[in-house]
């Protein structure tokens, strides 16, 4: 049976993880702030964007995120529905959430619907991502909708 302190710590950790993830999303609200983005990740973090590629380590992740600036001039990341689990160790966590986004890609309004997942580790009292993943449900031109055109071609192609 957990002590009151342990129970409080768990609730605080859930809130802290949520804040780190929100900060991550906010760093991508145009223009993409790659420095802030990778500062929330461990050195050996992996970002798996499926059809958009897998990026290992801060440098590769930084380069990809910074590269998005050329193509995406504006976005708002509406992240919600956070499901956060703190492991019994208190130093590992997993999270899933829903994301809606409104990017302007190559001068076109696009509507994105995604789900995200992450693994985090508590390093010197600070939660950091070790893994970030996503599933793209749609990334549709605003004037089309996800039935007529579910996803635009990969950025930069």
């Amino acid at each position: 049976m957990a002590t009151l302190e342990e129970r409080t710590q768990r609730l605080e950790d859930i809130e802290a993880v949520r804040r780190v993830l929100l900060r991550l999303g906010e760093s991508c609200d145009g223009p993409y702030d790659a420095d802030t983005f990778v500062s929330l990740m461990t050195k050996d973090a992996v970002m798996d964007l499926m059809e958009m590629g897998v990026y290992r380590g801060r440098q590769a992740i930084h380069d990809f995120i910074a590269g998005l600036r050329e193509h995406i001039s504006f976005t708002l990341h509406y992240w919600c529905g956070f499901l956060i689990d703190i492991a019994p160790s208190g130093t590992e966590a997993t999270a899933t959430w829903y994301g809606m986004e409104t990017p302007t890609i190559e001068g076109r309004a696009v509507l994105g619907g995604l789900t995200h997942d992450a693994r985090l580790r508590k390093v010197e009292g600070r939660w950091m991502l070790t893994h970030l993943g996503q599933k793209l449900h749609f990334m549709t031109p605003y004037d089309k909708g996800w039935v007529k055109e579910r996803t635009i071609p990969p950025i930069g192609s």
Partner: protein
Amino acid sequence: MTTLEAQIQWLEDLQAIERLKLDYVQALDDGLCGARPFPTDALMSLFTDDAVWESNIHGRFEGHEAIAELFTGWAERLSFARHFTIGPSVDIAASGAEASGHWYSWETLTVEGRAIYLAATYDDDFRKVDGRWLIQHVRSNIIFRTPYESGWVKEPFPQS
């Protein structure tokens, strides 16, 4: 239970109820996106035995069998669904074993091959059974269910 312990319990209960709603939403979305077999068991395990599901459009459904049939019926007509849920505002009764919650929902759906935006609010009741929170009553108020091309002013509910 000390006041401090009661406060912590309240916060944990709030957390648990948020999770419960999200578990429901995720399982339903997966099923409506084509997960087979349809996750009926996973969904029903989140409801009390005397569960009720109702909305201003669909009507009222009582018990696991009727509710499961409602969901699997949707799965035949929908090929895609994502519920973006916002909230909740949760009230937990003094007993600590009953609660109600209010949510906003923004849904992107594909219904019989048509892209639909659905906006709804939910008022749900929950009960704690053997230490676990379960959904007892879902009340969905659908505000609009508009074809993507039209929007809620032109066509708040599909004409055809």
